[in-house]
């Protein structure tokens, strides 16, 4: 183990790994890592963390709000993505097939002027439980909030209805932006075939 007194911060290493450092800083970090194993091992940990995040996400083990460009990128890389577009205040019949990697819901909504967006989610199979997703990221220009579901869990669920409500949050309170209903068919069948 080589001892170096001036270690790099995790921010510098994150910027370095994710192409956010300028060329001069990248060269300086390259040089530092050539003599400092402590920082190298910290970077190894970040790389492993990144690989882990990628792994659990593509396994459908975690949900995420994302963008349409990101979903198209996933499809371009060969992931099997099943998408449902739900009109403003609309509903859709949906399902997930065993071979699907990710299940995506496009919730069309008037997002112009919205500063903060929350969502409420409720399933008919657990009517007493309401999940609130707070401060979800969105692009106001996109005209939709895009939700990548916890697909691995969805594959295990029986027939049910899920309701999503988008809320615009302002300093004075909240305003309902739209309500979306998913009629989910638990066993892959005709709904899957129709969605393709």
């Amino acid at each position, binding site marked *: 183990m080589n001892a170096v007194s001036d270690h790099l911060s995790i921010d510098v290493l*994150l910027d370095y790994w994710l192409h*956010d450092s300028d060329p001069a800083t990248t060269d300086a970090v390259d040089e530092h890592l050539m003599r400092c194993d402590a920082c190298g091992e910290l970077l190894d940990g970040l790389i492993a*963390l*990144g690989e882990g995040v990628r792994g659990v996400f593509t396994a459908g083990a975690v949900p995420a709000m994302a963008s349409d460009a990101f979903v198209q990128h996933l499809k371009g890389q060969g992931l099997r993505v099943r998408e449902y577009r739900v009109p403003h205040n609309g509903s859709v019949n949906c399902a997930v097939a065993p071979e699907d990697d990710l299940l995506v819901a496009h919730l069309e909504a008037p997002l112009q002027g919205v500063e903060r967006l929350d969502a409420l989610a409720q399933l008919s199979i657990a009517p007493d439980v309401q999940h609130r997703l707070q401060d979800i990221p969105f692009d106001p220009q996109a005209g939709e909030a895009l939700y990548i579901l916890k697909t691995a869990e969805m594959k295990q669920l029986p027939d049910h209805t899920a309701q999503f409500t988008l809320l615009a949050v302002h300093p004075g309170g909240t305003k309902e932006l739209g309500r979306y209903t998913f009629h989910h068919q638990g066993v892959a069948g005709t709904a899957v075939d129709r969605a393709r």
Partner: protein
Amino acid sequence: MQALDAAATDSPEVQAARRIAGAAPGEAREAEAELYRLLAPRARRYGLRHLRDAHAAADLMQQVMGLTIERLRSGRLREPERVLSFVLGACRLTVMDQRRGERRREDLLQRYADLLSPADLHVAPRLDRQRLADCLERLPERERSVLVMSFYDDQPSEEVGRQLGLSAGNVRVIRHRGVDKLRRCVDAGRRAA
């Protein structure tokens, strides 16, 4: 790269390089193994960062270490105390070569195959996938989204921000906060196990 050499005047890497250079070719096997143990992981990291492919990074590591040891054995690396800057320079040239599609490393890989064993390299511990998923799910939506979109394809903050309607600076702040929480959560699980 002078600072790199100045900081390593009497480091274990330089000592090993001197022993290799001072011995008859191939007679300083222990020093060669020591140099490999010290520098190969660093060359591999360089390859990971600049080539973004684990196999290509492993190839780069083997090629650079083979070249370094060959130069030390033959006396063509005249200043063993500059071994760190030599390795970094070789990494940079190799990446440029690979980007140009040149393939001239097979000979080195074959000649030093017995010496260049990656068996004892430091590798980051594997993460508990279930624990990581739980920790990731506990993050606020914004942090989770930014981490997923950043790490899925190692995207810079500007690209992630463009897709989420955020500034690059804001993405970096959210990313930092998310990574910090995620590391703490995963580490806490590892300690508890």
